[in-house]
């Protein structure tokens, strides 16, 4: 009995440890003061006004959404194709290709950042949307490959044989049988790709420029100048979008 009590308390503490920092930032965004203090002495929406009225914040939010959208699109198309290829290859090629595609996840971000920065400088891409999209795609692609790969493992190969036997060509089979059945994996991969891009900081700091800058980079810059609750507003906006994407995924995959 006491053992069970102890276990429950431990679980509750762990959960609090994970969730509290996230929850702490939300009240800070509704503060009336010019600095972050928890809990705020007075409440207001003034920093939300500041955030959405300031062109520089709006532009970075839009840039973040744009980069995340392109990243998601490219990762989903390329990652699904890669997963299909991996599923078709023999066991040895399969292991090799899987570790190759998962490489960027295990490589330290700072190593990738330095490498990408030097290449972006050489090609004059620093500070462009394209540089950010390329960098984010490197990080997002493995999640699509993984998610779609898991869905493909669960796909009954005989369904494809049955479709072929009924006269369908490869692309028709992909469109009418494979894709609908791996859709949960594709959607899951897309959500991961979007979130990965949306809150990526390290590569973005290196590759962003004065004109193109994502929201996390802007928050990081702001926090070094002034520790105002507008930073908390930016963070809350990110939190809402990430949670929104994750719940959309849950809803879609439950169907």
């Amino acid at each position: 009995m006491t053992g069970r009590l102890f276990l429950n308390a431990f679980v509750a503490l762990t959960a609090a440890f994970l969730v509290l920092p996230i929850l702490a930032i939300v009240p800070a965004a509704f503060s009336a003061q010019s600095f972050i203090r928890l809990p705020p002495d007075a409440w207001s929406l003034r920093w939300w006004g500041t955030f959405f009225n300031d062109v520089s914040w709006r532009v970075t939010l839009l840039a973040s959404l744009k980069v995340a959208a392109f990243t998601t699109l490219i990762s989903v198309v390329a990652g699904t194709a890669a997963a299909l290829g991996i599923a078709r290859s023999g066991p040895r090629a399969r292991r090799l290709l899987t570790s190759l595609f998962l490489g960027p996840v295990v490589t330290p971000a700072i190593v990738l950042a330095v490498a990408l920065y030097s290449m972006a400088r050489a090609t004059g891409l620093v500070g462009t949307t394209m540089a950010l999209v390329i960098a984010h795609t490197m990080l997002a692609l493995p999640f699509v490959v993984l998610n779609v790969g898991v869905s493909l493992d669960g796909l009954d190969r005989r369904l494809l044989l049955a479709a072929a036997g009924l006269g369908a060509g490869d692309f028709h089979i992909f469109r009418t049988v494979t894709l609908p059945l791996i859709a949960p994996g594709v959607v899951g991969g897309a959500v991961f790709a979007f979130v990965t891009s949306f809150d990526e900081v390290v590569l973005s700091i290196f590759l962003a420029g004065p004109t193109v800058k994502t929201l996390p980079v802007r928050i990081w810059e702001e926090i070094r100048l002034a520790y105002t609750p507008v930073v908390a507003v930016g963070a809350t906006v990110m939190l809402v979008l990430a949670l929104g994407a994750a719940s959309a995924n849950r809803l879609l995959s439950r169907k």
Partner: protein
Amino acid sequence: MSTVQFAGISKAFGGVAALHPTDLDIPQGEFLTLLGPSGSGKTTLLNICAGYLAPSAGRLVVGGRDITALPPRQRKMGMVFQNYALFPHMSVAENVAYGLTVRRLSRDEIARRVAEVLKMTQLEGYGERAIRELSGGQQQRVALARAMVIQPDILLMDEPLGALDRQLRKEVQFEIRRLHRASPRTTIYVTHDQEEALVMSDRIAVMRAGRIVQLGSGADLYERPVDTFVARFLGESNLLEGTVDAVLDGHATLGVPGFAQPLEGRAATGLRAGGAASALLRPEAVRAQAGGLQARVAERVYLGELIAVRLMLASGHELWSRRLANEWSGRDVVEIGWDASAISILPDAS
């Protein structure tokens, strides 16, 4: 609908022969069953026919045309898979219509043919159902409908009844037989169940270890098996091992240790004097006969209209008898016999 000819078809996986070179001619409209235990090569042969496997050697000729290199989608064959392989994200009607939409038929034509085949397979009114809402028997019929709606040249079935319970299996067997009789279409049916094979087939090819051991009607196989493997695989059998005394004019005599007289019977091919062989005596041929061999009743198994009796002979041999329930009295020691024509002398399967 077409004739099918396998000419020297073989298949090896990584140097191991799954199918030895096989010749098999199937006339148009025949229902042929490939019968054998797992690993006998029957599914390999079926998959080669469907185009899912490329043979290592040999040719496949359908309706006079060599289709060995043709991909599955150009073969016009309808396949019913073990566990059906129905598309889980489509309704019954969408599953059945799949092969027709691929062929870009008109909406009306598709609707008409789907309705027709659903009626034929007793699935009227189920068109809008999801696959997971159907019972096993209904799923089996959807699989059959999906294969038949494209009016295939050849219908292929891979143990399609394996997942059904016994009662349902019987019903579906007769259903498939009825559909085949109504419009005979060349059909290749794979099973390890002898009863299925006997109920539905025009001819049965018994397979073992990658070869067709015997090809013939159910009666051929049951009454004139080529060896002890076929005898064991179709029906119940008593096999008495012995040594061939003589072979003459399709008859042979077999000396069986413990029997005063050699057993005489129809000889299968491949026997030679002095070689080992077995005498086949079907249980239904073993009957009570006054003045016959003495035997002790070791076990009685009630089977409804029949009774199976295990008889121990003085020689130490054991014989099963299956006769009408009233034939064996309650006595423990009986005298038994059989018609001389009931015995076949068969080579032992190597």
